């Protein structure tokens, strides 16, 4: 019920501070290229106890930033998707293979994949992120070198794979063999870290819709990742973002690709179950 009280409070603030910019999420709707409808607000998944409605970070951005996502031509993140498209067809490694040799057209073979990751991969016996799967392909199927976990090459490839699932609902499994890792991720989400003693939840569950300095706090959803950020003019991966957040609590962060961040990604992704895959999104 905390959310409803907050909304009521923000409503009062918005009225009294007429002309000031409200930190509230707005009610705009997102349709990409005039055809891909993105679910940016929906009822929270059952496992969430303290939030009634989940929202894409898109709602917390200004109209100008939001507009970048309406058309792929205007979305700078799509430049990196194009680069990854070239890489998709490029032969690399000792086995003389490209991604396309096994997976053919990315639009077909990868459709829906982003929506269910991270997931428990039976053959590997572990929960894997898309990055882990890509590097597994590179080292085992291609005989190529693994990419740096949160480097540009892999983030661009994740963006390509994400782009062909846009509009499909996020649907990561949290039960069965994934449950233990999901519980670990949940534990991390609610654990305060660093000199500022902040958990993910302190900002993104208790305080979303409020201002943090001059910025609007979102729910910290990751359905829009990889995200093109205006601030660094490139695509940013989920783990790079986690690292930035944890660092801002003035804690030693986990490494991108570490089991802790994989668990956290699984948990945070599951908080967006029902939202559409939106990446590559555009954020500030």
């Amino acid at each position, binding site marked *: 019920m905390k959310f409803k009280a907050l909304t009521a409070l923000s409503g009062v603030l918005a009225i009294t501070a007429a002309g000031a910019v409200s930190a509230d999420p707005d009610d705009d709707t997102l349709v990409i290229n005039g055809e891909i409808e993105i679910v940016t607000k929906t009822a929270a998944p059952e496992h969430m106890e303290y939030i009634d409605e989940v929202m894409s970070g898109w709602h917390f951005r200004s109209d100008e930033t939001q507009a970048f996502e309406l058309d792929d*031509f*205007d979305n*700078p993140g799509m*430049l990196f998707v*194009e*680069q990854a498209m070239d890489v998709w067809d490029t032969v690399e490694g000792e086995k003389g293979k490209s991604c396309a040799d096994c997976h053919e057209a990315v639009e077909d073979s990868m459709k829906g994949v982003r929506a269910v990751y991270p997931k428990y991969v039976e053959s590997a016996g572990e929960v894997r992120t898309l990055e882990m799967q890509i590097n597994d392909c590179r080292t085992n199927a291609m005989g190529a070198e693994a990419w740096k976990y949160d480097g540009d090459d892999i983030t661009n490839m994740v963006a390509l794979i994400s782009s062909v699932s846009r509009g499909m609902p996020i649907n990561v499994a949290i039960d069965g063999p994934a449950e233990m890792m999901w519980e670990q991720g949940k534990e991390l989400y609610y654990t305060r870290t660093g000199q500022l003693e902040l958990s993910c939840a302190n900002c993104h569950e208790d305080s979303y819709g409020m201002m943090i300095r001059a910025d609007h706090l979102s729910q910290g959803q990751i359905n829009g990742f990889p995200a093109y950020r205006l601030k660094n*003019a490139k695509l940013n991966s989920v783990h790079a973002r986690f690292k930035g957040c944890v660092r801002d609590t003035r804690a030693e962060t986990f490494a991108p690709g570490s089991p802790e961040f994989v668990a956290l990604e699984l948990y945070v992704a599951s908080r967006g179950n029902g939202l559409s895959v939106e990446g590559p999104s555009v954020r500030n």
Partner: protein
Amino acid sequence: MADDVKPRVKVPKKAAAGETITIKTLISHKMESGQRKGKDGNLIPRSIINRFTAEFNGKSIIDVTLEAAISTNPYIEFDSIVPEEGEFKFTWYDDDGSVYDTSKKIAIG
């Protein structure tokens, strides 16, 4: 020539004779402003796209001078009259002397 410089344009495939259409253009380019310092503490020299032109069948639509305040991956949107069928030519001029261009045909109908 800088890496990953790739022009792209969005132009309708057809228009009515005399119609005004909107054209979007973008070139992937870092637009190094000359204001930033590198890891060694020295200024990174300016390296930008400094001019963009658009023509249709040899006649000018727009000729733009760009300065270092234009964002990475310069984006320019403008309107053009389409008097007849023909070809648009878009040209970008780099500080380093490189010239990038691309063309698009448009039909009347």
